[in-house]
């Protein structure tokens, strides 16, 4: 009886040790795996390399007119169009501003027109592909005659991965009359 008890206790001890070793091995394996992939997980939010469908602005059309001054053969960058001033009709929501994404650009543009004084967004586009331009916009409200300080915010997203790139805020004056 005592002998059986001892044998059972020894077997139990062996099983526990084996289970302990197995657990340790599993933990070590998990640790090694986590260590090997940690940086990938951390970087995952910024590596949006899965295919994506851009939400293109349907109002954007091919632009074959004059492009802003430009030279070819230079190192690749993002061409940002600047507007010294923009003349708009008073009391009308439908306006005509050429919001252009130059053809050479490696990214989509999203345009946002904001009044500086109030921070009010008058217009936001969807994505505009390189070589396309929106020529007619509908503002959120009509403006009274006058001069307004405004900013055209241009956000940029890479063509293949939708990763955000350097952007620009272009200050301008809205001459409404």
């Amino acid at each position, binding site marked *: 009886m005592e002998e059986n008890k001892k044998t059972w206790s020894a077997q139990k001890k062996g099983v526990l040790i084996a289970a302990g070793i197995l657990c340790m091995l599993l933990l070590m394996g998990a640790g090694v795996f986590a260590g090997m992939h940690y940086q990938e997980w951390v970087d995952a939010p910024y590596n949006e390399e899965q295919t994506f469908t851009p939400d293109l602005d349907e109002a954007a059309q091919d632009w074959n007119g*004059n492009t*802003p001054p430009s030279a070819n053969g230079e190192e690749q960058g993002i061409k*940002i169009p*600047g507007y010294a*001033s923009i003349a708009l009709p008073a009391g009308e929501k439908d306006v005509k501003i050429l919001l252009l994404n130059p053809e050479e650009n490696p990214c989509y543009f999203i345009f946002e027109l904001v009044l500086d004084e109030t921070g009010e967004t008058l217009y936001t586009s969807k994505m505009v592909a390189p070589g396309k331009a929106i*020529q007619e916009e509908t503002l959120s409200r009509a403006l009274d005659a006058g001069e307004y300080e405004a900013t055209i915010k241009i956000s940029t997203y890479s063509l293949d991965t939708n990763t955000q*790139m*350097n952007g620009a805020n272009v200050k*301008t004056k809205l001459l409404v009359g």
Partner: protein
Amino acid sequence: MKKAMAFCLAALMAAGMTTSAFAAAKDVNPGSVIFDQDSFINGKASVELEYDAVAEPTYTITIPMGVQLVKGGTTSTFKAEGISNLNGGKIVLSITSTRKSGMPDDCPDFALYRGHNYVPYEVQGFYKDGTSHFVSELNKEVMSFDEDGEYRYRVIPSKIIPVTGTYWGNITFQFDIVE
């Protein structure tokens, strides 16, 4: 003969109005002029002119696609074109944001981010006359220019890069026109 004279006069008037519409291009921005000849009866001609004004860009600045940070700093360039259209005004360039969507809130401005590490940096803007100054705050002038050309700036890490690899961050530049 009278009819021919009247037609020539109408054409001259149309040409004159077209010219004056484009003469204002710097302020109003160019558009297209549609010339419709409505009638030409008994030596009297009438025309309908429609000025379809679309506000177009007046200048272009080429900015770098991203921020590169290496030991010792990285030099990048802006390329300014069409600055003469500003009628003597100059562009003042500043940085209005250094964040990228998804960056943690505790990552400070003027820093690139990787995992739990971030590397602060400074931006050194170079003026055409060779002078330069350092900027590490938002909305401060990095440089200014009043003519076309290439203008340099340098991104310099403020401390040793703790872990090698790709660090994340973007710069949103701001262009102001100052008379």
